[in-house]
Structures are given as C-alpha cells and as structure tokens.
C-alpha cells in the first residue's frame, strides 16, 4: 500500500528524486554520518573514496562547473595541507628528495595528501548536501525542537530578500526628489548611509508591529505550538533508514578495523584486501547510486527497494 502523502511530496529536481523524496531526518543523518566517517578515517584509500564520491555527487546534483568552482575556491587551503606543508615536515623514514638541506619524507607527503583530500572531500560533501538539504528541510528537522530559534532563522531568511526590495524602494523614492540629488561623491556616500539607516528604522518598527500582530493572533497563547508537518515518516523511509543504518555501521566497523592496522609513521603500513573497503565505498556512493539507478529505471524512489 502506498501512503497518500507520497504523491503530494514535492521534489525540487527530478534528477535527485530518489534521495530528495526521503524524510529530511534521514537525509540529514546520512550526510552527517558520511561527514563524520570522512573526518575520522585518516587513511589514503578511504579518503580517496570519499573524495571521489563527494565530487561525483556534487557534480551530478549541482553541475560539474559548480563542483570544480567549489574546489578551485578552496584550492589554496587544500594545496597548503596537501603539497606545501609536507615539505617542512621531517617525520618519516623514506627520503624522497632533498630540498636545500632538508629531506622531504614520503610518509609526510602521503599524510599531507590525505589531509588535503579530507579537507576537499568535507567541503564537497557540504556542497553536495546543500543541493538536497534546502533551508526549509533543515528548519523542518531542527525548527520544531527549538521553536524560538527556528522562528528567528526562518524570519531572517525571509527578511534578507525583503530588505533588498525595500532598499530599492527607498532608493527610488530618494531619486524621485531630483532637487536633492547628490552633487559630489561625499553626498553619494552620505545618501547610501541614509538609505541603510532608513531601512533599519523602518524594518525595526515594522518588525515590532508584526510581533504585536502575531501576539494578537494567538502566538504563544498555548504552551506548545503545533506546526504543520510537511514531511511524514513513511514505511519507505523506515526501510531506507534501516538500509543506511546497517551500511553505515558496517562501514564504520570496517573502517575502524582497517585504520587501527594502518600507520603513517615511521613507515607506511600495508593496505588491507580490497573487500575491506567495500562497505565504506558503497555507503559513500549510496546517495549517487540511488539517484542514478532511479533515473535509469525512470520510476520513483520505491523502485530501488
């Protein structure tokens, strides 16, 4: 049986439907687990897997240009961790080459490369997550637990575009008084400050009146305020949660076992057999695989299971 709510749930991009149609708590939990696993496993294979998965999902969900631009924007920081810092570190036993009087060690280079990969992967995962976890979903998950904070965040989100609109309105009004047009650059700057000050005063008084209006309409009259639940937890969500939970736990255990046998210093440890990385790889690629398999089948998210 299909729950009735299923048809009504909107999706932003049909491409991401398989992941987008899940309950936001699962999406948030899934990305949080992926992020924590990425930051905890300081191991070249795991980090490379996470990086590739993050880059592909980010590229798939938000476009390859956005993915590359996100990376390019953070390139100096990543390069410092991955390439420049190892030159100064003398930890390790295998000398790669000499830079002046200092030896550059292979172990330091690998460690630095891992940290660079981790930083890049974390940034890309955030970029990928924001394609799916829009602000309204984050509010739906967190806002009901902290109602005042939730109200404040959603009002701030609303006010930013309103301020831009009102700024234009004030500007138009000021410009209409052509006799008072600014004569020199000092007056132009002065006019800008006046504009922002007007905006602040207007919005501040307006917001206090809004507060009174909300109170008059019964805000805070009862102890707990119920909210419209846009997202319902369905059977499909429970199955997806179980799948994510099992896969996440499996990859955490395997990552822990592999990492506890791995070392950077004094010499690099040996790599574990390929199947040890399988659960982690599956978990990292899960969001992307879900979306791709659905696009191939051309159905909705339930086809996956």
């Amino acid at each position, binding site marked *: 049986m299909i729950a009735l709510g299923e048809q009504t749930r909107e999706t932003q991009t049909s491409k991401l439907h398989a992941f987008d149609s899940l309950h936001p708590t699962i999406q948030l939990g899934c990305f949080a687990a992926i992020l924590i696993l990425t930051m905890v496993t300081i191991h070249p294979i795991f980090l490379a897997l996470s990086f590739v998965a993050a880059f592909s999902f980010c590229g798939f969900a938000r476009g390859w240009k956005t993915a590359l631009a996100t990376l390019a924007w953070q390139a100096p920081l990543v390069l*410092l961790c991955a390439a420049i*810092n190892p030159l100064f570190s003398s*930890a390790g036993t295998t000398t790669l080459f000499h830079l002046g009087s200092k030896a550059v060690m292979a172990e330091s280079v690998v460690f630095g490369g891992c*940290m660079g990969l981790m930083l890049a992967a974390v940034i890309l995962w*955030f970029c990928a997550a924001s394609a799916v976890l829009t602000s309204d979903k984050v509010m739906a998950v967190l806002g009901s637990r902290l109602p005042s904070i939730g109200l404040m965040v959603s*009002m701030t989100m609303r006010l930013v575009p309103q301020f831009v609109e009102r700024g234009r309105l004030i500007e138009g009004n000021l410009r209409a008084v052509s006799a008072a047009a600014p004569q020199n650059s000092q007056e132009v700057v002065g006019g800008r400050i006046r504009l922002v*000050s007007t905006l602040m005063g207007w919005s501040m008084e307006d*917001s206090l009146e809004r507060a009174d209006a*909300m109170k008059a309409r019964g805000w805070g009259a009862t102890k707990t305020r119920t909210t419209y639940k846009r997202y319902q937890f369905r059977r499909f969500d429970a199955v997806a949660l179980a799948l994510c939970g099992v896969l996440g736990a499996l990859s955490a255990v395997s990552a822990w076992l592999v990492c506890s046998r791995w070392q950077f210093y004094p010499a690099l440890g040996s790599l574990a057999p390929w199947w040890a990385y399988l659960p982690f790889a599956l978990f990292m690629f899960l969001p992307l695989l879900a979306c791709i398999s659905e696009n191939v089948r051309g159905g909705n998210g339930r086809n996956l299971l």
Partner: protein
Amino acid sequence: MKQLLKQLEIPALVGVPVVLLLCAFFRVAQTAVLSLGIVLVALLIFFVNYETAKPALRQIMPTVVLGALAAAGRILFAPIPNFKPVTALCILAGVVFGRRAGFMVGALAALVSNFFFGQGPWTPWQMYAWGMIGYGAGMLAERGWFKHPVVLYGYGFLSAIAYGVLLNTWHVIGFVKPFTWQGALLAYGASLPFDAIHAVATVAFLLVIFAPWRKKLERIKKKYEL
C-alpha cells in the same frame, strides 16, 4: 538541568578555543571532527539556553532584523573581498540589546548568509566567532567600557582580527598535518591582508553607523518599551 545548562554557557563558549589548542598540544589525530563537535556543542548549549529563557516576540524581533541586515550587508558588499558589516552590527547589537542578542545576531547572520554564499565546515565556526564578538561587546558594554569611543573602535579592530585568527587556527590545527610552524605561518600570512581589510571595514562601519544607529535603536527601545 536548566540551571546546569545556564552555568555551562560561559565555560562552553570559552572552552572552544581552549579545546582547539589542547588538541594541537597533545597532537590529537582526530582534531578535525573533534573540534567541529565541540563548536557545535557550544552553539547548542547557547541555543537551548536562549530557548529555555522563553524570549518574548518583541525581544527577538530586533535581533532578527539586525541579523538579517548583517546578512544582507554581507551579500551586498560581497564584491569587495572581506569588506563586511557583520562584525560592526554584532557589536552594535551586543551593546544596545545585551550580550545574548549580540551572539544571536552574529550566529543568525553567519548561518543565513551562508545559505546564499554556500554552507561549509566553516559555518559553525563563523556562527561561533561572530556570536562571540557580539557576546563580548555586550559584556564589555555592561561594564561601561565603551564610554570611550577609542575602546569601541579598538574592540572592533581586534575582534575582526581575532575572527580571522580563529578560523585560520581551526583550519591549521584540524588539517595542516603533520603540524609545522612554516605551514602554520604560511596559512596565517596568506589571510593577513584579508583580515586587515575586515578590521578596517569594521572600524569604518562602526565610525559611520554606531552612534546614529545606537541613538535610533535606543529611541525605538523607549517607544516600544522593550
């Protein structure tokens, strides 16, 4: 429980940089995730305390408006790198509406403007850093430190620098490994010009808006009996 959380607020807020430095000192391998966890816990303790105080609608509205103005200002001035009014507005909010409002303005501005700029692992750090600037401004104003304008501009300048240093320190301690002084200095050096712009912008915004806006806000406070 509520009392305990209230007692924990200041230690948790002060504890974030302390834990960051301890992680560096003891060379903790998992610093990246540990430091992110500690900053999230500090933010959560503050938010829960804010929530349990049951702020009235009229109390939260000025905070929301100043937070939205700071976010809009950050977006408006985005073409000039790091020339942003957020720090100045956090200080103003802390001085006029108290330290908790100052913290909330900083946290709201960082969170909301990042929905436009792009969220990242830096979001909780920016929320914390700007929040602390507002919180500190509120605490100093309570003790009457800002009577002399030089102290105010000095605080604005130094807090903008501190903001940059905190975000860099998190990056250096979390990711520049194995830790080397050369690598750390390179990271701080590269961001120095940007931090300098931020500091100058903060003082410039304070010079222009602090006195008139404070007067305006005090008038509104009186008018609406806040």
